[in-house]
């Protein structure tokens, strides 16, 4: 008879140990990425989404929009498209987390001696991976429509670094929020409501045409800071005007602070909510 005995578990390092969180979070992230890769249609969708936005705004609305300070609208638009892809991390994790809660496999995860934060960490990490696919799609169509970065390769990469940081941060918002839904269907209703977050900003049009109250919201929207940071680092038009709102005067610093702030608030909330969800 074949022995069923597995090697005894390694000396129990607690589930809060940083190494455990990284290893277990990595295992869950890999699972999420595998889910994505097993649905080629979903993957194509993630690649094509930025192209649709570029088509709509670059060619349908673009002719009617005047770039502040002059310049090519599509050069103005692309940083906004990248920022939109970064903030869409919220919707991705809302859906994946809500879907997981309804699945039986979540019971197994909870009954296993894995890091308690592994599932949230895995979802946000996988959302970052999906974001890279979105960014790749956006970059391909950016090059196709004639967008260029004008300030050199290091600043080009620095902006992508900021986009990834912001994408990762928004994934945590999605996990914290997604835990409120009972299943994917509920989350699917909520995700379209997120659309204005990327629109009430400087992503597609200058904010100075908005009513004063809306302009304040738009200027302080973190998505505006991310967009402005990209415009600045890539030397794209729309940055030569003196902005009154503080985050737009220092968009790189604002993006970093927004991201760190979001993670600092949402990550502990998400982990705590995940721990207690369903236990009472």
């Amino acid at each position, binding site marked *: 008879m*074949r022995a*069923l005995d*597995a090697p005894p578990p390694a000396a129990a390092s607690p589930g809060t140990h940083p190494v455990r969180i990284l290893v277990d979070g990595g295992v869950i992230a890999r699972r999420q990425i595998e889910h994505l890769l*097993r649905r080629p249609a979903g993957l194509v969708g993630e690649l094509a989404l930025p192209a649709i936005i570029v088509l709509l705004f670059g060619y349908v609305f673009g002719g009617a929009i005047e770039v502040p300070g002059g310049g090519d609208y599509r050069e103005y638009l692309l940083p906004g498209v990248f920022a939109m892809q970064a903030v869409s991390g919220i919707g991705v994790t809302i859906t994946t987390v809500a879907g997981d809660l309804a*699945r039986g496999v979540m019971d197994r995860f909870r009954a*296993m*001696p894995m890091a308690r934060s592994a599932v949230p960490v895995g979802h946000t990490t996988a959302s970052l991976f999906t974001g890279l696919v979105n960014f790749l799609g956006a970059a391909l169509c950016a090059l196709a429509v004639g967008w260029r970065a004008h300030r050199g390769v290091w600043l080009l990469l620095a902006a992508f670094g900021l986009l990834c940081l912001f994408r990762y941060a928004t994934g945590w918002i999605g996990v914290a929020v997604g835990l409120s839904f009972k299943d994917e269907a509920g989350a699917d209703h909520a995700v379209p409501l997120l659309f204005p977050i990327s629109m009430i900003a400087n992503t597609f049009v200058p904010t100075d045409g908005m009513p004063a109250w809306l302009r304040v919201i738009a200027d302080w929207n973190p998505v505006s800071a991310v967009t402005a940071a990209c415009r600045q680092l890539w030397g794209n038009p729309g940055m030569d005007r003196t902005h009154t709102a503080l985050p737009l005067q220092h968009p790189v610093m604002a993006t970093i602070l927004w991201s760190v702030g979001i993670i600092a608030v949402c990550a502990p909330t998400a982990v705590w909510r995940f721990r207690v969800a369903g*236990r009472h």
Partner: protein
Amino acid sequence: MGHETAVLVEGVAKRFGATRALRGVDLRVPAGGVFGVLGPNGAGKTTLVRVLTTLLLPDAGRAFVDGIDVVADAERARFRFGLAGQYAAVDEQLTGRGNLRMFARLYRLSPRAARRRADELLERFELIPAADRIVATYSGGMRRRLDLAASLVVSPSVLFLDEPTTGLDPRGRAEVWTAVRDLVATGTTVVLTTQYLEEADRLADAVAVIDSGRVVARGAPRELKAMTGSERLEITVPAVDDMAPAARVLRAATGIEPVLRPGSRTVDTGMGGAPGEVARLVRELDAAGVVIAHLNVRRPSLDDVFLRLTGRATGQAA
């Protein structure tokens, strides 16, 4: 040996809003063998298992698995038990092999050990041919076997099986039963919840009957059966209206309260076991004008125990 305790439950209570799912459960499961937790739908079996596997916090009471407090020391307890449930807790969108490797990694096996362990379990549960297919394409029986395999990644001391055969066809059920017997042979204690008396009767060395959040009886299936008399007589009458007169005659003749099977025309009674008792009862029924359509003498089953303890047939909701 034989005196060790695998699971100890003391006064565990759990309430969901106005519903008292568990009302102070006390239980001791000895190490080794299969322990059956028997009860109808809604009796609290699943709630009890969820408390014991750290998925739910009890409102009151204490519970230990392999001597470890499942509330105070949940993380350590999670190394000692395995859980396989009514709903296969595996990832539908991964392959069978992918599932087992993932769980093995989460149980802290190295990548190489996880691969080896996954292969062993796939072979052990005869899943090699389906190993690289995604689980969504598996049959019900295959899913349960994968679920069982996943709960055995680190040979647990105690394996909780929550209604492992609910919804399975007879073949799938037989597969799970075989797997359970093999496991017990390797020294694992199995705690099995079921609403099927046949299952508890076939697999369990000892059972506890739960009803409305309380343990209402416990013992070996044999001991519980003894509660209902040595042999049982089933009388089927031509019409439902004939059941009451038949029961009256049987009650007077045996001194034991007969059972009117709900939804049938059968009256069922225990007998004292005296020689010639069946013939005597038939004569008395005949003399009272009760027509016997069908007659059966049988050994009591856990069904009888259940009906007697709870006043309901198995499978009927509480």
